[in-house]
């Protein structure tokens, strides 16, 4: 079976070029200006053809909380957002803290075959912060990294052991950077806005303190620490310093943290309640600078579905989290439109760098011999992001019902068309 994507503009991290892509089975076999014959021809004239996006930070709630989303609906949401590989976090029920659960998750995704599911295993058994998990077996089963995300690893000694042991197995640690002794039962960023609203805040220093600790432990152990969902300007200063010192550290940012600030909470809309919380305009600017100057390695979504009944309630009783997969492309394209990053940098942040981090040598680039994971993007397409488009079981996005610009109009996974934007002809 051969597929030809013709007339599109290929965007790689290091180049942009108008060329045709010939796919055979699951591989790209030719990048050409010719028009070879194929079984399926997709005309991508006027569209951007990017390597499939890789989201290293999602919550699919499966097993245990399938009423919010499951691996199948999570996969459907991913491809509707142009994402062809996802790393679901371990805070399921039961926690993904052993190889059996890891294998089950991967198997379930494989049966549907929309995306590659690469689970993040828990750092500690039951995510209880104590003994570390069997990282060796879990890596063999398919875990690509380890995190207790949703919760930090508070014990420095446990984190030291995790960094040492994961490095031995060629893996790395992702920490939810939060010094819980500073949480103070907070529900938003601590500052002028939280004082105004009478909502308890969490100071940004709780994130910065934990990042400081983790970078020092990475220095001690030589292990690789990846900082999840950075949200404060000072966090980036710390990470930049650590990188200059040669510490094995990388980091990610979510679209909501480079798009929204805490002023969105003025009306107590729980769809803006997330952890880490939305911070100030200055922090948002710092995130954009961090993307521009290369301190931030990756854009991920922290896609965190929650049922309407849980979100539509008093602000302090609602859970943290926001949908992200289907708004990743439009919000990241806003950075391109604002001149913060180029389209090539967008590909680097959403596909190439995640592939490198996960040591996936066959993707992140549109090139001959690479896996045919491809996202065709219309950057100028304006549409209503509504319940019909939303593929998640949950609706907790402040952007739902809003007009967005830019979308994945076709998503190809391993050479197979897995998503076609309704009523759009590419």
């Amino acid at each position, binding site marked *: 079976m051969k597929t030809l994507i013709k007339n599109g503009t290929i965007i790689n991290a290091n180049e942009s070029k108008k060329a045709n892509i010939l796919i055979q089975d699951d591989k790209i076999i030719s990048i050409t200006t010719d028009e070879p014959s194929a079984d399926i021809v997709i005309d991508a004239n006027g569209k951007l053809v990017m390597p499939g996006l890789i989201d290293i930070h999602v919550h699919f709630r499966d097993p245990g909380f399938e009423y919010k989303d499951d691996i199948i609906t999570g996969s459907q949401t991913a491809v509707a957002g142009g994402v062809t590989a996802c790393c679901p976090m371990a805070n399921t029920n039961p926690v993904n803290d052993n190889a059996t659960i890891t294998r089950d998750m991967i198997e379930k995704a494989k049966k549907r075959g929309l995306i590659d599911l690469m689970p993040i295993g828990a750092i500690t058994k039951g995510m209880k912060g104590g003994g570390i998990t069997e990282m060796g077996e879990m890596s063999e089963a398919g875990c690509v990294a380890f995190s207790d995300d949703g919760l930090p690893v508070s014990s420095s000694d446990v984190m030291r052991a995790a960094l040492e042991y994961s490095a031995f197995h060629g893996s790395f640690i992702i920490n939810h950077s939060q010094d819980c002794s500073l949480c103070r039962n907070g529900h938003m960023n601590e500052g002028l806005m939280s004082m105004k609203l009478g909502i308890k805040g969490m100071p940004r220093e709780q994130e910065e303190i934990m990042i400081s600790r983790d970078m020092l432990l990475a220095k001690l152990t030589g292990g690789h620490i990846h900082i999840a969902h950075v949200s404060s300007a000072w966090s980036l200063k710390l990470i930049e310093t650590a990188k200059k010192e040669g510490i094995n550290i990388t980091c990610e940012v979510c679209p909501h943290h480079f798009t929204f600030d805490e002023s969105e909470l003025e009306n107590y809309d729980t769809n803006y309640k997330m952890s880490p919380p939305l911070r100030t305009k200055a922090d948002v600017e710092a995130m954009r600078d961090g993307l521009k100057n290369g301190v931030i390695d990756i854009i991920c979504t922290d896609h965190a579905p929650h049922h309407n009944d849980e979100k539509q*309630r008093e602000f*302090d009783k609602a859970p943290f989290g926001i949908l992200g997969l289907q708004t990743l492309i439009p919000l990241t394209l806003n950075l391109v439109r604002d001149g913060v990053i180029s389209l090539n940098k967008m590909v680097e942040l959403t596909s190439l760098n995640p592939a490198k981090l996960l040591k996936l040598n066959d993707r992140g680039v549109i090139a001959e011999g690479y896996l045919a994971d491809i996202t065709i993007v219309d950057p100028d397409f304006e549409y209503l992001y509504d319940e019909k488009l939303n593929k998640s079981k949950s609706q907790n996005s402040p952007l739902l019902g809003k007009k967005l610009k830019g979308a994945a109009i076709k998503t190809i996974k391993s050479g197979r068309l897995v998503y076609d934007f309704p009523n759009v002809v590419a």
Partner: protein
Amino acid sequence: MAYSKKDLISTKDLTTEDIYQILNLAKDYKNLNLQNEKKSPLLKGVTVVNSFFENSTRTRTSFEIAAKRLSSDAINFTASNSSTNKGETLIDTIKNIESMQTDIFIMRHSSSGAAQFVASRTPSCVINAGDGCNEHPTQALLDLFTIHEKFGSFNNLTVSIIGDIAHSRVARSNIYAMQTLGIKVKLFGPPQMMQYTKVFGCEICKDMDEAVSGSDAIIMLRIQLERSDDETPFPSIREYCRYFGLSKTRMQKAKENVIILHPGPINRGVELNSDVADDPRISTILSQVENGVAVRMAILDIVYKNLKGL
């Protein structure tokens, strides 16, 4: 222009005219409350639900009396016997009660924003009787009524608010309303209860002497221990009293005709010494309670007429 909303959620929503409208009406109701027959037929046939999801004695009683003096059918329910304790959501509880053809919700809740949350989801009137650390607009209005009663005007007044500003809904509602009226507001309290209070744009005092001196009215706040869980507690009551409490000795720095207000309940010997709290020349605490009924009658009057387009 008179206040035209169906709800009263925040003093931020009130103009100077709105505040005077409420206070003038409250004056009439205070006169009514001094009659032998303390009754107006205004809300006859109207069902007022005192929905208190958080403990309260004086505010709940004050609203109940206000509603009954306007001839409404006032019912109470409290968190301890409400369905929310059985797991029902707040909005389901409200919707269920509303199905019994009720008209006005007076709502107290421990969550900031809860009154607004309900108001945007019900056609009934919602009066915020205190939502978390956010606001307590009727308390602010009764404070203003009490201050106006004493001074006859709000012109050139300075008011100090002292104590646990961070956790105080009374402080927020007072600050917003007083700033609308052009009253100068000074704030003072322990540093851990003053963080980020510069957002309010008030003068921040460095000690009690500065807070007390030059003010026409002093609002003393209670330490909100119930809202400061997970935070490192204040070292001791003794220390609080010494640096942040108001006593007769501290009052030497105050203006001669100053008045002291407190939203209650008082922690005697903590934020307020009995020698101040019980001095009828300066303490207006019981007047506040009395005025609270009249102010709440005025608010019930206005929001109900707005709801019905009267």
